[in-house]
């Protein structure tokens, strides 16, 4: 019986530790969607969404970053710097989601999600060319 008790105790402690560890890591790493204003004030990783300011994107070789600005529905504009490849249909995006931390005067993005007008929705009626055959 002692042995069984010891096992149960060890198992219980291991599970409790594991849950605490998992939940702690989970809470630390959550990146909530926030407004630009909140992103500027936060020290933590956050997630913002906005539309690309046309023509604002450039590749800055000195810092080797893609720099661009996004604007939200209220007209607030946020500078974003991204160290990485310019995503495929970046310039056609309807919305860009940037995940990162605000540093200095811009959001240093670790990850970008580019949302495009779905290739397969709403464009069907216009995009084909008729063939009489």
């Amino acid at each position, binding site marked *: 019986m002692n042995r069984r008790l010891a096992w149960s105790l060890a198992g219980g402690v291991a599970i409790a530790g594991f849950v605490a560890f998992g939940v702690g890591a989970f809470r630390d790493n959550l990146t909530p969607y926030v407004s630009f204003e909140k992103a500027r004030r936060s020290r933590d990783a956050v997630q913002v969404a906005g539309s690309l300011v046309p023509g604002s994107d450039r590749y800055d070789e000195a810092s080797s970053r893609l720099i661009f600005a996004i604007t939200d529905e209220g007209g607030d504009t946020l500078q974003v710097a991204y160290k990485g490849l310019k995503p495929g249909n970046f310039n056609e995006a309807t919305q860009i989601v940037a995940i990162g931390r605000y540093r200095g005067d811009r959001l240093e993005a670790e990850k970008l999600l580019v949302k495009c007008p779905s290739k*397969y929705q709403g464009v069907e009626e216009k995009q084909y060319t008729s063939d009489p*055959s």
Partner: protein
Amino acid sequence: MFVPGVVALWAAALALVGSTVAYARALKGDANARSWARQLYGLAVFAVVVASAALLYLILSHDFRYHYVFSYSDRSLPLSYLISTFWAGQEGSFLLWLLAGALIGLPLIPTARHYENRTMIVYNLTLLALAAILLRQSPFRPLEGLPPGQAPFDGQGLNPLLQNPWMTIHPPVMFLGYAATAVPFAFAVAALVERRYDEWVRAALPWALLTVVTLGAAILLGGYWAYVTLGWGGYWGWDPVENSSLVPWLASAALVHGMLLQRSRGRFRKLNFSLAILSFVLVVYATFLTRSGVLADFSVHSFVDLGITGWLVGNLAVFTVLGFTILAWRAREIPTSPGDEPFLSRTVFFVLGIAALLGSAALVLLGTSAPLITRLFTQPAQVGPAFYNRVTLPIGILLAVLLGVVPYLQWRGRSPEFVRRLLLSLALTAVATSAALLLGARGLLFVTFLAASFFALLANLVKTVEALAGGRLRQAGGPLAHAGLGLMLAGIVTSSAFDRTEKLVLPLGESREALGYTFTFKGPEVDPASGRQAMAVDVRSGDGTSYVARPKMFRNEKSNQLVANPDVKVFLTHDLYVSPIEFDPGQPADAGAAVEIGKGETATFGPYTLTFRGFDMGGGHGGGGQITIGAVLEVTTDGASQTVTPTLAATDSGFVSRPVPLPGPGGATLTLSGVNASQGRARLVFSGVGQEAKGGQPMRFSADVSVKPLIGLLWLGLVLLLAGGVLALVRRAGDFAATTPGEPSSA
């Protein structure tokens, strides 16, 4: 609607219903019912095959009147990619899943033995759930808004990122694995209802192994595809789509070990029922996550809600409730007995291993579900790769240590050679870890992980070699798979923790050194293999060997999407990974550097005298249908003459010039910038000649180059892991076939 396809789908659904009803009657003792049930199942399989053939026919015959064909294919695709169009979209991939599931039933029926009636009732339900989705969201529906009697001339084409050989075979392998998870689920439910709690494990074990092998292979293919296609340098991004095949894989691996435990120890019955139900429910949950659009704001994959969310939630609810209710109903009467094995026994280590697998599955599931969980309390949020890396690292180390100790444990205790073998493995691990430290491995956590991986690898390698030397190939499956897993973990550590990356900006013709290599940008060219625009970069290593890296950068015409694929060169000790970032075509030099001449004419620029001999169409049609034109020119400088042929190629992504070097010092080049074929005139631009006009900027190419040490270990390890899985599958299927059936299977 494409009528034959829709009729076939309805026929399949009705035949499945009929087969289910007939199996239910067979339970009541109707003598003929089972034979009816089997024939109806055969009919359902036939109908699913017909429906699949119908979709394939529409795709191959370019029938763009149908939404699916129009959306995912076009006339320019070669046969292999046309076939893979079948599973490029949601509807087609559900059909592929249904096809895999239907075919699995054929060998399942004759091997289900006395569980057949109940197993097939449950299994048919899982197939019906898929068929219902297809009837609701048909792959055969017509393109909307089409004027009667007209058809689009061409479709929108396949996403260029999916036009890759690895991506053509990844989905079929994956859906085979997904479909196979339904078999242990069906057996578990049947066994619970029949109160025969033990025999099902033998029957279902080969199927659980099939899931582990096929889902593992699919993860391997998908990871390798991401590595050679996407260009961010990795193979695993913890994206919801990736996680949703990883979690069922981890659960199925736990199930396999639980079944082995039950087979040998005659215990852990409830554990296996839970695991079998859980593995399947996780597949259904993953499908809900990735197909319903609930994660649309959180993933790079474009999820679109097709209006089947309700169905997916319904499936999830039905199968979760069905499985766990029956388990709860029987839970009290399932016999349990306490164990008395010492800590150092295979039994305890298997339990710990199962706990580690389930723990990591739970954490990955928690992370993937973050947007759903947080939505309940506050605004939706997600977790990034940092979360997954942090939580899986300690579990990985724990798992590797377990793997290293387990080969010399027996079910009830240590084997006689345990201490000697353990010391041998530890000594080998110490040697390997010291070697890694000498080679520059640093960082406590990484070196710990590396040492644990070496331990797992070496202990199991010794065991594998012993088994093979003793002629016991059949028993080598487990150790081989575990050695592969150790190798894979080692490869993950070396290639990610010790990866070195540099960003390079390469002006045309100039050399830059990085990571022990010299890179020289030679200009854009047409990749002969794919017919797409690539950036030619000459790479020279310290010992003088060289090759041309051709990372691709092209614009997909259909979607107007800029596509960049990296170039991966595999060396014995590392991969050299060149990933394109940006191509700057530069400012054309001013008119002074350009010369336009007709056939037979002569022009002079700087120290060079050019005579235009004529066009060379010999470049002809390369791959991909582009046309290449060369201008044959005789160049005279310093009294020496030579013939050069700069070329201009028309590709899908526009014109691509291939400059040629000019004789003499200074590295001058000559580019064919335009042709007027009807008048026989060519426009040529000099670069790098002393007199070049000011303000001209050479073209530039920016790339991330990285060295990934020993990443080959990862792929080799995964292949070994799968090979071990196949060995185990053959062994367990053979074991099962050799047992006497509890009841004749054929009525």
